[in-house]
C-alpha cells in the first residue's frame, strides 16, 4: 500500500531550481532512503513536504490525501514527524519537557502528556537523561532527542534528516538499532543520509537525486551499482570501471 507520495515536485529559489521534478512513492512500513551529493536538494524536499517552503509546483499526498501547502503544524497532526539536520533542541527546557511539548500534539492534559513522553523516552533510550537541560546534551544525544520528540507526536511517517551525521561508531550502531526498532513498530520512515553504512544496511529502497533531479531508484544494491549515481558521487572516471 502506498502511504506517501510526491508528484513532480519543483522548487525554484530565484533562478535556481533546487528541486526540479522529483517524484517518488513510499510504501507502508518500509524504510525509504533519499541520497544525493551535498546541495542536491534533499533537505529542500523535506522542507517542501513539511511546508517550511511552498513548492513552485507539484503535489504531496499522504494516504491519498493532498497535503501540499498545509500549515506545518497541521502536517504534523496528520501524522508526519520530522527531525532537523541542524538539530533544534528547545535549549532551556529539560529533555522531558521537550518531549512533553511534542506529546501535547496528541493529548491535552499534562498527566497524559507526561505519560506519553516518558514512554517515548524509554522507547528511544533517552530516559536516563530526562531531567537534563536539552542544551547541555552532546550532539549524539541531541540527535536522539530530535527522534524522540518526533516519535512523541505519534507519526505514521517519520522523516529523518541526517540523524547519523556526527556520531561516533558505537553511537552509529545504536542509531541504526533505534531506526530499525521504530520501523518494527510500524512507522514508515524516509531517511536522508550521507553515511553509506547506515543507508545501505537499513533502507528497503533508495531514491538518488542530483541537482534536484532523480538519477536512480531501486534497492540499495541496484542504486550503489548505478553508473549515474557513482558518477554523481565520485566523478565520471569511476563510473565506467
Amino acid at each position, binding site marked *: 500500500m502506498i502511504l506517501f507520495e510526491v508528484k513532480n515536485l519543483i522548487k525554484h529559489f530565484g533562478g535556481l531550481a533546487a528541486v526540479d521534478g522529483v517524484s517518488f512513492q513510499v510504501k507502508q512500513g518500509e524504510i525509504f532512503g533519499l541520497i544525493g551529493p551535498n546541495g542536491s536538494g534533499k533537505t529542500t524536499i523535506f522542507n517542501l513536504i513539511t511546508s517550511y517552503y511552498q513548492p513552485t509546483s507539484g503535489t504531496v499526498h499522504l494516504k491519498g490525501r493532498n497535503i501540499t501547502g498545509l500549515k506545518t503544524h497541521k502536517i504534523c497532526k496528520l501524522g508526519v*514527524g520530522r527531525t532537523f539536520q541542524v538539530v*533544534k533542541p528547545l535549549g532551556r527546557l529539560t529533555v522531558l*519537557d521537550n518531549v512533553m511539548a511534542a506529546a501535547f500534539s496528541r493529548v491535552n*492534559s499534562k498527566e497524559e502528556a507526561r505519560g506519553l513522553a516518558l514512554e517515548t523516552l524509554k522507547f528511544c533510550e533517552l530516559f536516563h537523561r530526562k531531567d537534563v537541560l536539552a542544551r547541555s546534551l552532546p550532539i549524539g544525544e541531541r540527535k536522539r532527542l530530535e527522534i524522540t520528540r518526533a516519535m512523541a507526536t505519534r507519526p505514521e511517517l517519520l522523516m529523518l534528516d541526517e540523524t547519523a551525521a556526527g556520531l561516533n561508531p558505537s553511537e552509529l550502531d545504536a542509531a541504526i538499532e533505534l531506526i530499525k526498532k521504530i520501523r518494527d513498530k510500524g512507522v514508515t520512515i524516509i531517511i536522508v543520509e550521507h553515511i553509506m553504512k547506515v543507508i545501505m544496511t537499513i533502507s528497503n529502497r533508495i531514491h538518488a537525486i542530483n541537482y534536484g533531479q532523480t538519477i536512480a531508484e531501486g534497492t540499495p544494491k541496484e542504486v550503489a551499482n548505478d553508473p549515474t549515481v557513482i558518477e554523481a558521487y565520485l566523478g565520471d572516471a569511476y563510473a565506467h570501471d
Partner: protein
Amino acid sequence: MKKYVPLIFLFIVAIFPLVVHNAYYQHLIILVLMWVVIGSGWNVIAGYTGQVSFGDAAFFGVGAYAAGLLTTKLGLSAWWGMAFGGVAAMLIAFPFGWICFRLRGAYFALATLALNEVMRHIATIWEPLTGGMVGILIMPSFVSKIPYYYIALALAVFSVISIQVVMHSKWGYYFLSIREDQDAAESLGIDTHFYKMVSLNIAAFLTGMAGSLFMNYMGFIDPSVVFSLHDISIMAILVGIVGGVGTIYGPVVGAFVMVAVHEFFRTGFFGLFKGLASLTGSHAVTVVAKYVSEAHVLGFGILVVLVILLLPNGIVGDWDKLVGRFFRQRKKEVKD
C-alpha cells in the same frame, strides 16, 4: 520552606495598610501591585513566549481609556471599566497580533513600538471621543486608599495565580517551545501563530485591567501619561528584566524594586539632597538635587546595565547565585 515564602509575603502585603496608615506608603504599594499585574502580563508574552513587546502602554492606555470613556460617555461607573478594560485591550491585541505575528524577533518588537505610538496619537487626535490632550477626569469612587489597595492586591494575586496555572498547562509548554525555537515548535504540531495570539491576548487582558485600575485610582488620564513609552512600556520591560524574565515571581520582585528605584530618584534620594541643601545652605547642592531627581531615567539605565551584567536572569532567576555570593563571602569572613 521556600514554598511558603510567597504566602508569607502575601500575608505581609495584605495586612500592610492595616498597620501602616501613611497614605504615601499605601500609594506606593498600590503602584507596586499595579506593576505586578503589568509586569506579569509582559512576562507572558516576552518572558515565556519570547515575543518582546515594547508597546505595553498601548494595552494599558486602551484599558484606562475604556474605563474613563464608559464613565464620561455612557455614565456607567468606572468600575465597569475593570471588566471591560481588559477586553478592550484584547480588541486591540487581536488584529495587531493577527497581522504582526508574521514578523519575528526584533521586527515584531519594532511593530509593538509602533502600536504604542499609533495608539498615543489616536488618543491625542480623536478629540471628540477622547478629549485629546485635555484627557479624562472622573470623580474617584473612594476617598480612602484602602479599597483601591485591596482591589489592586486582588488583581495582582489573580494575575500571578492565573499565569502559574497557564504555565503548567499545554499552553505553557507551547509558549516556551515557541520561545526556544519557532521552527521546531511548528514541526511538533504547534500552531505558533495561534499560540502567540493567545499569549499576547493574555498579556493585553492583564495590562488593560491594570490600565482601568489606574484610571479609577488616579481619577485623571491623558494620552502622554497612559500611552507613555518610557513611563509604561519601558518600565514594564524593566520590571520583567530586573525581577527575572520567564519566572512566575520575577515581575513581583521587579515591581517592588523598580517602583522603589523610581521613587528614590523622583524624591531626590528620599529628600536626602534637600536636607543637605538646607543644612549646608549651599546653592550647588540644590542644583545637584534638582538634576538627580530628574535623572531617574539615567538611573534606570545604569540599573539595567548592572542587572544584565551581574544577574542576567534577574533577581528571581539568579536568586541562588545571589545567595551563593553572599554566603561565600560570609564563609570567607569566618575563615579570616
